């Protein structure tokens, strides 16, 4: 069979997209930095300012003044930044003039990842050797437990950023397994600095809810405040420790503010639950929402205020009764193509 040698020009056309994103040489970046510095001085001169103390903010202001643009997208407007921020960080050419690559693992393809594995394994062997020396001298191996709860390993994306090359899922999991093996050894404290490069602190999320202590006003009466919300209503309640069970909302008595029995029941529920109906006075302010939402908001605010008057066990009872939980239900949005949040348009067969 004859092989077709002279082909059409369409086949010979160089596939520009296949070579990947544009690669910048070091000389090109250097030139861009020089041009940027020169341009900065020219700009300072033009604006009548001192070229030595011309900061990036001044540059942005000057450019916005000289080239006003009404474009919506901020990134489409004229921009003058340092070339290191404009051109993404790239791998420079990996070999010298005579063609010899710089890194000894260049021919593997993933040189930074494999050199990282090589280094980590070397640390592992070091720790094992140290352990053997200690056992030969019959010394006890140190075992200080590393705090595993407060730290996490680097994520795959962070590792990729560190190595400047793509890391596959298998490679990443292998690296993490190797690090875990290293940490599991008794004498791993020697390589603590190296391990810290790959672990990050995780802030402790669970925080014990602090119950505020009672405050005293001018007359010596103990009181405490609480905030609550429900749908769009926001309420602030102040609960006093004195005698009668008087409740005032926005300066108006509850009988007049909440004519409906259901709302007043909601307000009194925290007190009824704790059995302190006639013992506390309450003054609260509420805004937003509707009648039921305002009632729910005040209920939550008063329950939160009552925590300061009550033992921890009763606080736990209140929490289990649902008095201290914020009600997350809000009005669901209407979707296009439907009549309401869930209701669809009437389906017509024809």
């Amino acid at each position, binding site marked *: 069979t004859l092989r077709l040698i002279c082909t059409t020009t369409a086949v010979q056309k160089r596939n520009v997209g*296949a070579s990947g994103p544009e*690669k910048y040489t070091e000389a090109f970046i250097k030139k861009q930095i020089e041009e940027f510095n020169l341009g900065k001085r020219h700009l300072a001169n033009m604006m009548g300012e001192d070229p030595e103390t011309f900061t990036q903010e001044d540059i942005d202001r000057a450019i916005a003044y000289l080239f006003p643009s009404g474009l919506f997208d901020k990134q489409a407007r004229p921009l003058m930044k340092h070339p290191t921020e404009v051109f993404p960080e790239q791998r420079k*050419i*990996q*070999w010298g003039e*005579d*063609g*010899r*690559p710089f890194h*000894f*693992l*260049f*021919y*593997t*393809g*993933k040189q930074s990842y*494999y050199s990282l594995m*090589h280094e980590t*394994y*070397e640390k592992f*062997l070091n720790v094992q050797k140290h352990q053997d020396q200690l056992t030969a001298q019959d010394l006890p191996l140190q075992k200080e437990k590393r705090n595993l709860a407060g730290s996490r390993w680097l994520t795959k994306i962070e590792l990729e950023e560190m190595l400047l090359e793509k890391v596959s899922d298998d490679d990443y999991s292998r690296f993490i397994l190797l690090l875990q093996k290293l940490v599991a050894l008794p004498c791993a404290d020697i390589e603590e600095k190296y391990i810290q490069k790959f672990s990050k602190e995780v802030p402790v999320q669970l925080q014990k809810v602090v119950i505020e202590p009672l405050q005293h006003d001018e007359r010596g009466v103990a009181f405490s405040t609480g905030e609550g919300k429900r749908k769009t209503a926001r309420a602030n309640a102040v609960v006093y420790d004195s005698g009668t069970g008087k409740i005032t909302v926005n300066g108006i008595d509850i009988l007049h503010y909440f004519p409906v029995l259901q709302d007043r029941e909601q307000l009194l529920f925290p007190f009824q639950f704790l059995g302190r109906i006639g013992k506390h006075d309450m003054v609260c302010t509420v805004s937003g929402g509707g009648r039921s939402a305002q009632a729910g908001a005040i209920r939550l605010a008063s329950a939160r205020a009552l925590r300061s008057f009550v033992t921890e066990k009763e606080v736990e009872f209140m929490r289990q009764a649902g008095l201290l939980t914020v009600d997350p239900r809000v009005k669901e949005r209407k979707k296009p193509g439907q009549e309401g949040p869930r209701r669809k348009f009437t389906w017509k067969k024809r």
Partner: protein
Amino acid sequence: DDKLLTEPLSHPDFFSVKELFTLKDLFDARVHLGHKKGCRHRFMEPYIFGCRLDHDIIDLDQTMQHLQLALNFTAHVAYRGGIILFVSRRRQFCHLVESTARACGEYAHTRYWQGGLLTNAHIQFGPGVRLPDLLIFLSTLNNVFEPHVAIRDAAKMNIPTVGVVDTNCNPCLITYPIPGNDDSPAAVELYCRLFRMTIIRAKDKRRQSEAVEELQ
């Protein structure tokens, strides 16, 4: 410059490679131990001295000759500033081989071999790559006990190969096979030491000759 390159070729053993090892060294490093009779490869039969209780023993006289030729060849390649790539797919010796390569100033590949590394280099690495001028195999088999893909690729790209072939390996496509054990740590450490010494010797000699030339 011409004299620098042609002078070593006139001597049979310019780098005096024979002094680096003796038969006793090879025996102590257990290089003569092969695999069992069932694992024997047909093309390794000329290199096998005999079989004792189903265990193959490699002929160390032949190994000496092959090793000397191979070391001489690597020394010449290193003298001319060629790129040497150490290849081994054995997990036990991966770290050792990489450290040897680093100590010599040469390159190593002891990880998973991606298909187009040698044959598709211009696309994988970028235009203008220089391919290795010599491949050294510390173990010709990969993790599934099949011949390493790099042997075939090097033969395709006309790159000479030096390889340690055990009794279950195929010595066909390797230019300078070295029949010997590739499983014992002692044997592999011996090979690493020998290659490292030859390469460092050759590079030192090159620097000396260049210095002498510059003085003249």
